């Protein structure tokens, strides 16, 4: 099930969270008797080796030892269950198996052969339920369900995925897979991998044309010949953007991500059982976040064409295909509606036109880079590499679909990921 709130699509899989809960409960049931039957020496040794213990007052040390030595069955069971659920990610409010998708307005990078870093987000794209406009929307669109999103001709977008549970996500433009260039098809496949893996892939900005290179998603009126769909299929039937989300199976998630982190002995429960303050350190993991700072013909349907080239890697799935639960998935059709007809369809004013390259450069908004050296990278799609970019096709047709294609000099970059490229100068501190 997908819900829409505040221009964000949220996909929840409560059945996965429930299965995970059962697996963790099973762990508690099998582990508790073992802990209760064992001695407490190892736990006491562990306590005495802690920095906080060594520097505590004698009275605090005595109390801490007492709490381990005399911990009741009930307190051990409570500690085991609480820590197990926390390690499995199940103690937070809300569902664990949850994915949020947001579409960001952004700068259209020049299509000039240069490889650009990732531009910032400049506000969320509006999303509206198509059912709210039954009277004014094309019946073919209504048939597909989903949501409506306004875009200006030649405006660009990037997609943000947020979630801490693993998901496989298929992304299509005009039902052409944005990772493989093949038709939408059914289900997930490897060789070639036709999906992205979240959360290792926090953003996607375009079509995967080569290893480490994407061509930016750029909106063009459907029927003008510029969209990737039209160039590959020869028809302008679908347009829009398609998403399908598959969660990882609870068993696979439990086995690969949770089992090793669960408490198995009394020693593992020391921090839970000792209530005397011996000083703990807390680590916060920073989630990568890109900044969000604040017409050919006016055809209403838009499709996505290929824009300029950007440095972005699509990471290979390190899991087995069997780890993904293909029996449950959520789909959404995002209709891209020309902003010029937004008022006709929805009765509301369209968003302001996109920022120009000059405005972006003058504002000092940074560019971004996300680089992981612990993950393999997909090689890109030869099909998509063979598609003409909007600029090149425009030249061939003698048209000017883009108003401004002058080069930019992005110099300030914020680095995310777990490594630096040797040739990148790190200008900003990591957030």
């Amino acid at each position, binding site marked *: *099930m*997908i*819900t*829409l709130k505040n221009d964000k*699509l949220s996909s929840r899989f409560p059945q996965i969270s429930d299965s995970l809960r059962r697996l963790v409960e099973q762990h508690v049931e099998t582990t508790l008797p073992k802990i209760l039957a064992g001695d407490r020496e190892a736990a006491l040794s562990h306590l005495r080796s802690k920095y906080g213990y060594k520097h505590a007052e004698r009275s605090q040390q005595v109390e801490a030892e007492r709490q381990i030595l005399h911990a009741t069955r009930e307190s051990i069971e409570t500690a085991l269950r609480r820590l197990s659920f926390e390690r499995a990610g199940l103690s937070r409010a809300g569902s664990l198996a949850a994915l949020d998708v947001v579409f960001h307005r952004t700068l259209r990078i020049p299509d000039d052969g240069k490889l650009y870093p990732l531009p910032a987000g400049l506000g969320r794209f509006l999303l509206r339920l198509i059912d709210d406009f039954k009277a004014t929307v094309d019946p073919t669109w209504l048939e597909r*369900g989903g*949501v409506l999103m306004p875009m200006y001709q030649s405006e660009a977008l990037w997609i943000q995925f947020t979630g801490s549970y693993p998901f496989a996500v298929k992304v299509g433009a005009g039902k052409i897979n944005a990772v493989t260039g093949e038709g939408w098809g059914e289900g997930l496949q490897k060789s070639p991998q036709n999906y992205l893996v979240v959360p290792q892939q926090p953003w996607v900005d375009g079509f995967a044309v080569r290893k480490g290179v994407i061509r930016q998603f750029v909106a063009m009126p459907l029927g003008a010949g510029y969209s990737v769909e039209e160039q590959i299929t020869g028809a302008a039937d679908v347009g829009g953007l398609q998403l399908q989300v598959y969660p990882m199976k609870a068993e696979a998630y439990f086995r690969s991500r949770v089992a090793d982190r669960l408490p198995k002995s009394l020693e593992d429960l020391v921090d839970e059982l000792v209530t005397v303050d011996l000083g703990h350190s807390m680590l916060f993991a920073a989630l990568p976040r890109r900044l969000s700072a604040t017409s050919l013909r006016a055809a209403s349907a838009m499709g996505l064409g290929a824009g300029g080239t950007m440095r972005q890697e699509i990471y290979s799935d390190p899991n087995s295909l069997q780890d993904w639960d293909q029996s449950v998935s*959520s789909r*959404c059709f995002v209709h891209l509606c020309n902003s010029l007809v937004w008022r006709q369809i929805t009765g509301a004013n369209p968003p302001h036109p996109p920022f120009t390259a000059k405005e972006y450069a003058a504002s000092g908004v940074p560019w971004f880079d996300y680089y992981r050296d612990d993950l393999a990278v997909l090689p890109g799609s030869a099909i998509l590499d063979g598609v003409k970019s909007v600029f090149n096709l425009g030249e061939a047709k003698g048209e000017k679909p883009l108003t401004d294609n002058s080069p930019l000099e992005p110099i300030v970059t914020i680095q995310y990921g777990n490594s630096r490229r040797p040739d990148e100068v790190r200008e900003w501190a990591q957030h």
Partner: protein
Amino acid sequence: MSEAKEFGAIIRKHRLRRASDDAAFSLRQVARRVGIEPSYLSKIERGQQQPPGENTIRRLAADLGEDADALLALAGKVSTDLIDIIRARPAAVAELLRSVRRAPTKQVAEIARQVRDGNW
């Protein structure tokens, strides 16, 4: 203020606001487009007539660019499609409506809504 007077005052207020920069919103022209007599519209605006039926209110709302449900509510009417929804699940809908009664408008607009997936 009686319902009729309140409804009339709002209609008049909206119409005059539009008329201030667009002559197409005179009493006569609005009445003609909506399909009623100008004298009837005049009486409605002055609260001398009960608010008109649902269809007329909808046409007035569309012409003046205002929300039909809001005008219907002011007229003491509930749109028939809403009545059907309430009839189908009276207890659940009543509970939902009571829960949003005190919520600020922004919060009501932010209630998560399910996305329907169709055929594609």
